[in-house]
């Protein structure tokens, strides 16, 4: 199902800096669509440390990643940005009329006047366990996510991991697979207790196997797995027969497609100027952890500042010839109207 949207600005990344960018652009009447690879807003604050306290947000002596995210969403709310989750931007190019075209892996196309890359450490992607030879089985026998459950019907499935993804997919796929084995390094699970209990019931009922150990090697040929070599808790090694393996070791950040968009980079970061935070391609901006300039500090507060300055140039590009009046939210009637407080 392909979709198409035309808008003023597309923000890549719904982390703290992407969310504050909605606010800064919104004050200047610039409409935004926001794209993120995760299934929710917050970026690293949602994925890496939702419950960890952050101490260096101005005026918030202590705030958790989750709380900061919900406050930023609330602050950006008056501007009605449209969010597109579970989408990775794969292509970004300038088209003949000077606008930009973006495409995502979920077949959404955007046409816009400015692009703001607020992609933090890049895109969150599944961690690939460094098991020798694993590459040869990827997408034929080894999968890092479940896109369609049907693809696993009738398979001998080995799921590796102890978190929510591992347990959820163990329980959800068990009824349709031929055999199910869950492998985890210890008999203790991070996942929600409900799903752990459900898995243990399935084991009790003889409907699946639970093994405690770690994968050390893979066996098979022509991209089809026949077994995984597993080192079990007592140090002995055994083969677990399977033709499908799903390793769930969490997510890691990779620069991803950003590297292919023809922008000048500095050690995997996007080079910007410090007046407009514009990249080597006019109309494409970068804010937050993903950008680099002399003196750059990867702090959330720096990203907020960058968003405010970037928005000024975005306004000039979108409204050529129009005068941009600098205003304060404390005193400007027009800004207060936009915020819905006047």
């Amino acid at each position, binding site marked *: 199902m392909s979709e198409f949207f035309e808008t003023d600005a597309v923000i890549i990344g719904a982390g703290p800096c992407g969310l504050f960018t909605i606010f800064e652009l919104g004050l200047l009447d610039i409409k935004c669509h926001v794209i993120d690879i995760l299934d929710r807003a917050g970026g690293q604050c949602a994925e*890496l*440390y939702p419950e960890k306290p952050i101490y260096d947000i101005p005026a918030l002596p202590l705030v958790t990643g989750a709380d900061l995210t919900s406050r930023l969403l609330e602050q950006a709310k008056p501007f009605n940005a449209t969010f597109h989750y579970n989408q990775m931007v794969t292509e970004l190019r300038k088209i003949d009329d000077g606008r930009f075209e973006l495409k995502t892996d979920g077949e959404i196309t955007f046409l816009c006047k400015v692009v703001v890359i607020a992609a933090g450490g890049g895109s969150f992607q599944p961690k690939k366990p*460094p098991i020798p030879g694993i590459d040869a089985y990827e997408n034929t026998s080894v999968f890092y996510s479940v896109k369609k459950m049907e693809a696993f019907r009738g398979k001998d499935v080995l799921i590796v991991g102890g978190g929510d993804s591992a347990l959820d997919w163990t329980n959800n796929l068990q009824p349709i697979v031929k055999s199910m084995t869950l492998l985890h390094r210890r008999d203790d699970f991070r996942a929600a207790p409900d799903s752990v209990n459900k898995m243990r019931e399935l084991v009790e009922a003889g409907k699946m196997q639970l093994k405690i150990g*770690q994968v050390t090697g893979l066996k098979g040929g022509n991209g089809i797995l026949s077994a995984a070599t597993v080192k079990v808790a007592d140090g002995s090694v055994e083969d677990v027969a399977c033709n499908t393996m799903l390793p769930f070791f969490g997510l890691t950040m990779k620069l991803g497609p950003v590297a292919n968009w023809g922008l000048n980079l500095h050690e995997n970061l996007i080079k910007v100027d410090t007046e407009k935070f514009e990249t080597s391609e006019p109309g494409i901006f970068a804010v937050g952890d993903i950008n680099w300039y002399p003196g750059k500090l990867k702090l959330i507060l720096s990203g907020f500042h960058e968003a405010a300055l970037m928005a000024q140039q975005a306004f000039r590009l979108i409204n050529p010839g129009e005068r941009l009046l600098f205003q304060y939210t404390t005193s400007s009637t027009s800004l207060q109207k936009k915020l819905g407080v006047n």
Partner: protein
Amino acid sequence: MAKITFIQHNGTEIDANGIAGMTVMETAVKNQVPGIDADCGGACACATCHVYVEPEWAGKLGPRNPMEEDMLDFAFDVRDSSRLSCQIKVSDAIDGLRVRVPEKQF
């Protein structure tokens, strides 16, 4: 000040001076030790600062904390000697510590 030795996968040793109160991970990053990625910046949220404590130091660092134990599920080839270096505080007591860096953090 405590001397900490990071042994690379290829056997190369990097000596670093750890400052009391900092973590072993921070010491590694400060000294540009390859293989300590520390994606999350020390929040015990990514398991990319995984190290193996050398046998002579086994049992001398205290047990893993429960959060660290959970995060180690995200590491590869976890052994009895596995620790997340962001959870080991530098003090005089660990002067001379030797840890091995895995070939890949993922």
